[in-house]
């Protein structure tokens, strides 16, 4: 399921099971680390699950499963 409803949606706003495509980042320093882990502009990201306490979230990208805190996820802007 693609979320096209809101422009410039952040990754942290996706629900479990939804997919988005990475557009750009709001935090330069964080963006380098995210890209090194495979979150490149143009890549598909799917939210796999959420931790029992609501944070962090687990995402699927570039063939990997990554987990990141919502705060970190909010630096990723989706198309």
């Amino acid at each position: 399921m693609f979320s096209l409803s809101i422009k410039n949606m952040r990754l942290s706003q996706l629900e479990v099971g939804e997919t988005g495509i990475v557009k750009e980042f709001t935090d330069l320093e964080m963006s380098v680390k995210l890209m090194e882990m495979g979150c490149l502009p143009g890549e598909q990201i799917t939210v796999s699950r959420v931790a029992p306490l609501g944070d962090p979230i687990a995402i699927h990208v570039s063939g990997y499963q990554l987990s990141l805190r919502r705060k970190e996820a909010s630096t990723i802007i989706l198309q």
Partner: protein
Amino acid sequence: MKVALVGNPNTGKSTLFNVLTGLNQKIGNFPGVTVDKKTGFCDLPDGRRAEIIDLPGTYSLYPKSRDESIVFSVLADKANPLRPDLVVVILDASNLKRNLLLYTQVADLKLPVIVALNMMDLAKKSGITIDVNAFAQKLGVPVVPISARKIEGIDQLKSAISYANKVALQEDTIDVESLAPQLIAHISREIEVENPYYALQLAHQHETLKFLSPVQSDRIEELEQEFSFHSQKAQATETIARYSFINDLLYDTVTKNETAQEENISNKIDKILTHRVFGFVIFFAILIFIFQSIFAWSAYPMELIGDFFVWAQTSLHRVLPAGPLVNLVVDGVMGGLSGVMVFIPQIAILFGFISILEDTGYMSRVTFMMDRLMRKVGLNGKSVVPLIGGFACAVPSIMSTRTIENWKDRMITIMVTPLVTCSARLPIYTLLIALVVPNRNIWWVFNLQGLVLTGMYLFSLVSAVTVAFAMKFLLKARERGYFIMELPVYRMPRWKNVGQDMYNRAKAFVLQAGKVIVAVSVILWVLASYGPGDRFERIEQKYKQSQYTQQMSTNDLHRAVASEKLENSYAGVLGHTIEPVIKPLGFDWKIGIALITSFAAREVFVGTMATIYSVEGDAEKMESVQQKMATAKNPDGQPVFTVAVAFSLMMFYAFAMQCASTVAVVYRETKNWRWPASQFVYMTGLAYIVSFITYHLLR
């Protein structure tokens, strides 16, 4: 020949290291960081011996933490004795895209490099086919498919290592110079660099690189200003360029059939293991199991080890002539050694479990689930295992904090883990509770004594969390904390790995922490066994007189002598000296002696009390000590061990740092005396305050 192993985490690097080096491994220190230096030797087919160094797993040469910065330091510092002649980059064949990022960086540094394509079996299962020859051709370096777990392809890898070129032949993967043309050119001219990418890396990391002189570092900074070099921007551009190369490479050489089977199974497992309710339930069940196991399975081996040393000591005393030197070696040193060896079962068991948890991939799920909760009190999701392990013993638990990458979180965990009620405190609590808490039930089912004991356990956990929270504000974070973490696919644990881990950890503990522990034990032994002047001789003379030898049994005589000797030893003198300081806590000088001897290890308290009161007893046999203590009276006729005194004493033992082994291990893990020293001070200070309050509240 020196070979460095480099690769992402979770690519089987440590398994490969273990396969190549077997038991010829050494765990050492890197100055300035807390990650271990793992080196070992491997015999090559051409007869040579290669020294293999296992560098920390990292996703990129741009470090996320101090520990990761070691990787570039070792590869780039020409003066570093560890600098490799060859780098083996390990790639996970089933996850090539991201793994290759690090490879391209290492390759562009123009170090001689070989690729080990690991987990070929898993790649095949996932429907991934790799044209290894085309892959090798495009990269321009030898590529060896292996499966470290199944020990396949290892011989070919060893051959490739022995035939490796001394000079790097690979071409640049990206146009490095275009990233900062003028800056690179200037740095290359002014500082001795080997290639453009090396110059670029110097520009990015010059502030943290120890092998650059301050003059060079300042000059680089100047140049960066001059050419408007923005480190983060350049890194971003570089990373995107590298992935472009990687995508092209993979497009031509790798084909994927269907979506990975492994992932689906992993996902299903995750649905259960990280479930809102069941996730936690399962996790706590596992924790309790681990904790119980440490207790239960280590008890027998610990007894065996203890008994062995006692037997060895008595035998040696029988064989060797009596004298102070013999006593020093047999009682002091061997006693200390016994205290060290006795920890081995607990360390081995705890690390066995941790190794399994990490190998299977479950540990990252633990962090995933617990992070939010732990973060609120300044701890890390990964702090749970050390904290719970602390209920058995803080020593292996503190050693296990190495799994916490964030420096601040790790330090806080190390500082508070000893607050949790460890097994050494149990005999003390049992003894003191039995002394002053009536053995009856309240509300029909709850035994009062049991309740108090449970209360002590819970209270310790609360205080650990509270202190952690306080430290959250007191300690400054050294680096920006990144949580971004990979959740690897679930795998069966590699049992040989687990075994090797257990062996290496235990060995490192004995050889490193062991020295400190033995030293402290010997000092305390000397304090307790020798007294000023000729007091000891006079005591012996006194008890040789007929009025004593006729009235008392040999055992009673022995104990009386021992008791008086202890009171007149240096430890006894110290006990008297500190009495004014501990009187506000309700303690007399006899308790003072026990406090001093307990600084080696808490459980010594019971044995010391037994000696002081001239009865037989130790942590296992407490009845006679308990009786004697219950009837002990002050000079003014009042009982010594009132409710107030007993609880005050328990509180003191709850908080004070009385464990030489913990101090030794904290030093080893932090590589700095500042930490164990401040831990000692804060804990003992806290002990004094809480003990004082307790005594005066309950009087």
